[in-house]
């Protein structure tokens, strides 16, 4: 099915989220919508899906003007959507989820799931999804849940499939598998709109690329274009995708972890006998597929989890059983992987977020009263030093974009006198411009002779930043290799193959 958007305009108050956007997706084409977070991609797709009414423009399917009053109309017309955050009921089975909202019933209104099971099996077999219709969704890994979403759309005869940032939650392998599925679907005649901000994926899978910046189409590109030129188009200025690191002579041992074992929420060893050293002036990256104990390791390092065995030394200081506050006072900076949950208070202002873990002592406190004069002065300094794009220090953190929220966290942690920096997924959900800046800051910390630990599931990030790489698999460190190790070997190690 051919999809055409003509002059779509959508305003929210004074903000123009979509400005006269034109887009044509041909049948059986994978069309990539490339743009940074907040560029207006999701708004455009929500207009297409009938969730928002456009202020101008029209939607055509096979050259027929459509008038969607809601997602129901869009689905009936053949548009399927896989949202970034899955719309699945965890305690329902796959088949139940697939028919939700459109349940087949027998004469007496009794649910008839046999038909649904058959349909799930059909689609699953056809595209090699390997999904059991009777499995509970909550028991499935994230990658499989996403396939359930795709099955849901296909089961309703979607001819145009919209995938909104589908790889954000996937491991590298799952991402590759998803791309294979996208190609198969396109071959079978489904048109695919692939929304993303990741250049590598666009280059790998897209037939054509439309780049959106600040709500407007800024150009078309071919997948054969270089990553640099795509990034420039997307960000609107030259972006340096390479991280520059100078040679730094290694200092004394900064962080020494030996035999660390952490028992997790389900009473299993989530971190199992982990040992490593990080010296001053060195970045150790902990790589691995999400869920192999990295999160728990980071939490144990900063005192949020109590290790059941082993020790953590910061220089001469034993911080194995220190409280979070003691760890902070010892000079450990921590950028948590989930900034909205652990890194920021969304309903606090930017200035209030800057003092989150410094409210006990000067310069932010004077006795038990907040030192407003100092706080405001330092906040303004941090906003300009760390290039936080905000209307002002009194703006609520939740109103900032993901990249700027992360800059607030980075600014807060790096502005302390650090003895160690731990950064967990430092650039997750962050726009390209901010990624560049945050990477520079992390490298600057290393260049200043501090030990740095970064934990990342993005192989690109790991190889760009690391001096040494430790790969975690099922709670253990499967090997520590040089930072210049090949992607192939790292990929194998992440899959549990010791090298």
């Amino acid at each position, binding site marked *: 099915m051919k999809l055409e958007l003509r002059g779509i305009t959508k305003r929210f*108050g004074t903000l123009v989220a979509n400005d006269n956007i034109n887009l044509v997706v041909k049948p059986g084409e994978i069309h990539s919508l490339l743009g940074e977070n907040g560029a207006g991609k999701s708004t455009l797709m929500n207009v297409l899906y009938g969730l928002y009414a456009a202020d101008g423009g029209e939607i055509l399917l096979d050259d027929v003007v459509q008038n969607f009053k809601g997602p129901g109309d869009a689905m009936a017309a053949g548009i399927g959507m896989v949202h970034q955050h899955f719309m699945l009921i965890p305690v329902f089975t796959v088949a139940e989820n697939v028919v939700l909202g459109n349940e087949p019933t027998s004469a007496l209104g009794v649910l008839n799931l046999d038909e649904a099971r058959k349909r799930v099996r059909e689609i699953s077999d056809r595209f090699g999804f390997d999904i059991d219709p009777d499995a509970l969704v909550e028991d499935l890994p994230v990658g499989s849940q996403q396939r359930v979403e795709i099955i849901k759309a296909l089961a309703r005869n979607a001819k145009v499939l919209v995938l909104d940032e589908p790889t954000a939650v996937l491991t590298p392998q799952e991402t590759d598998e998803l791309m294979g599925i996208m190609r198969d679907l396109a071959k079978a005649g489904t048109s695919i709109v692939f929304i993303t901000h990741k250049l590598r994926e666009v280059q790998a899978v897209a037939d054509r690329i439309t780049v959106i910046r600040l709500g407007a189409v800024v150009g078309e590109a071919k997948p054969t274009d270089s990553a640099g030129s795509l990034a420039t188009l997307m960000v609107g200025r030259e972006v340096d995708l390479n991280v520059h690191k100078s040679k730094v002579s290694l200092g004394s041992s900064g962080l020494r972890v030996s035999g660390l074992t952490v028992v997790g929420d389900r009473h299993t060893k989530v971190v199992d006998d982990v040992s490593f050293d990080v010296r001053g002036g060195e970045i150790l990256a902990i790589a691995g597929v999400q869920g192999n104990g990295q999160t728990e390791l980071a939490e144990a390092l*900063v005192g*949020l989890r109590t290790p059941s065995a082993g020790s953590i030394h910061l220089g001469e200081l034993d911080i194995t059983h220190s*409280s*979070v*506050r003691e*760890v*902070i*006072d010892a000079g450990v900076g*921590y950028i*948590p992987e989930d900034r909205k*949950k*652990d*890194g*920021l*208070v*969304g*309903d*606090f202002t930017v200035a*209030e977020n800057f*003092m*989150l*873990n410094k*409210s*006990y002592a000067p310069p*932010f*406190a004077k006795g*038990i*009263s*907040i030192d*407003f*004069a100092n706080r*405001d002065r330092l906040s303004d300094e941090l906003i300009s030093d760390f290039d936080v794009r905000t*209307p*002002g220090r*009194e*703006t609520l953190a939740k*109103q900032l974009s993901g990249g700027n929220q992360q800059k607030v966290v980075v600014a807060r942690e790096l502005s302390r006198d650090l003895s160690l920096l731990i950064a967990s997924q430092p650039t997750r959900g962050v726009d390209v411009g901010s990624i560049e800046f945050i990477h520079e800051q992390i490298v600057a910390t290393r260049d200043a002779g501090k030990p740095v630990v970064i934990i990342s599931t993005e192989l690109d990030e790991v190889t760009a930043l690391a001096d040494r790489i430790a790969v975690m698999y099922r709670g253990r460190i499967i090997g520590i290799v040089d930072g210049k190790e090949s992607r192939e070997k790292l990929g194998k190690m992440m899959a549990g193959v010791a090298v």
Partner: protein
Amino acid sequence: MTTTPKAVKADARWSIAAKEIVSGGAFRAFLSVLLGFVVGALFMVGSNEEFLKALSYFTARPTDALTAGWGAIADGYAALFRGSIYNYNADNLVAALRPITETLRFAAPLIAAGLGVALAFRVGLFNIGASGQILFGALAATAVSTRVELPWGIHLVVAAVTAIIASAAYGALVGFLKARTGAHEVIVTIMLNYIAAGLLTFAFRQESLLRETGGGGTPKSDAPAETAQLPLLLGDSYMLHAGIVLALVAVVIYWWLMERSTIGYRFRMVGHNADAARTAGINVELTFVAAMAVSGAFVGLAAINQALGARAGLTPDIDGSIGFDAITVALLGSSTAPGVLLAGLLFGAFKAGAPSMQVIGLSPEVTGVVQGFIVLFIAAPPLIRAIFRLPAPQKTTVVADWWARLTRKKAAK
């Protein structure tokens, strides 16, 4: 007339600001109050016999019904005004001014307990236990005021401090149970309300404890010793005592604690996002205990008001409905210091004015209905927006900027 671009821009700024104001909490609270009064008016009209009679021949002479209806509303709210603010029918000025002093007297415990509940709200805790904390504090205060002999002044201070400590401890117990065992504070506070009520009645009934000397079988305590009574503020003509002063001081302390101090900052942090607070090195469990203790301390001021403001012996219903009214005060006041102050005064006025509505034949429960509807409207912002066709909440920062500038001036002082 030509308009410069700058002026146009300024106009836009004003209109944005106007939008923000009408979509903000304070304006909505005002409209909720207004709407509550409208609902109250409907009740008065609906229960007015003259109006109902006129309604039966409405089509023949509609003016009769309208006049009667309007009269009923005017009479009702005039009575509320006379009972709570200024009695223009009184014979002398002293009597004419009495209603406003009564409003202040009734408002004092509402404000104090309202601050306590509000503080818990801002830490993310639902303190339903103000009632129990008042009773427990009052019990402790009564023990000191009736069973201990101390010189004038010192006696009052000791009794008051005892009440605050008792209420704070009773609140802290809730925080402790939540932090240690994960018990939900709503369940715990409700149960502690029963326990406090039982304890108080027991102490007031048992011969050897706080029971009235020479009293009958009803549970009642002795009157507080004169040395332990809150002093009257305006002489013997009025019943207004120093409780209102305590409440006003509490408002200032609450404002400073929550908006200016690092303690309140950490309280709010835990309330907004306990995970981030934990990551920032804050002991969340300890914060729950501390916050409930401070919440209880504010409620303790209401206990002082009830136990030491009295001139006669206390009965087990000493808390009245203050413990629960405090929740509505905190809600209407959106848990801010000035909000709680105004909400407390409003509900105090309702309490003071209800009897004079009864005098003109209106059910005094009308004020209760008005009070309930106000909070109902507060709790359902979309309802208010729909009724008044207000815009959705604005996310721009014009008002926030002004507010910051205003408060900054205070901070610079």
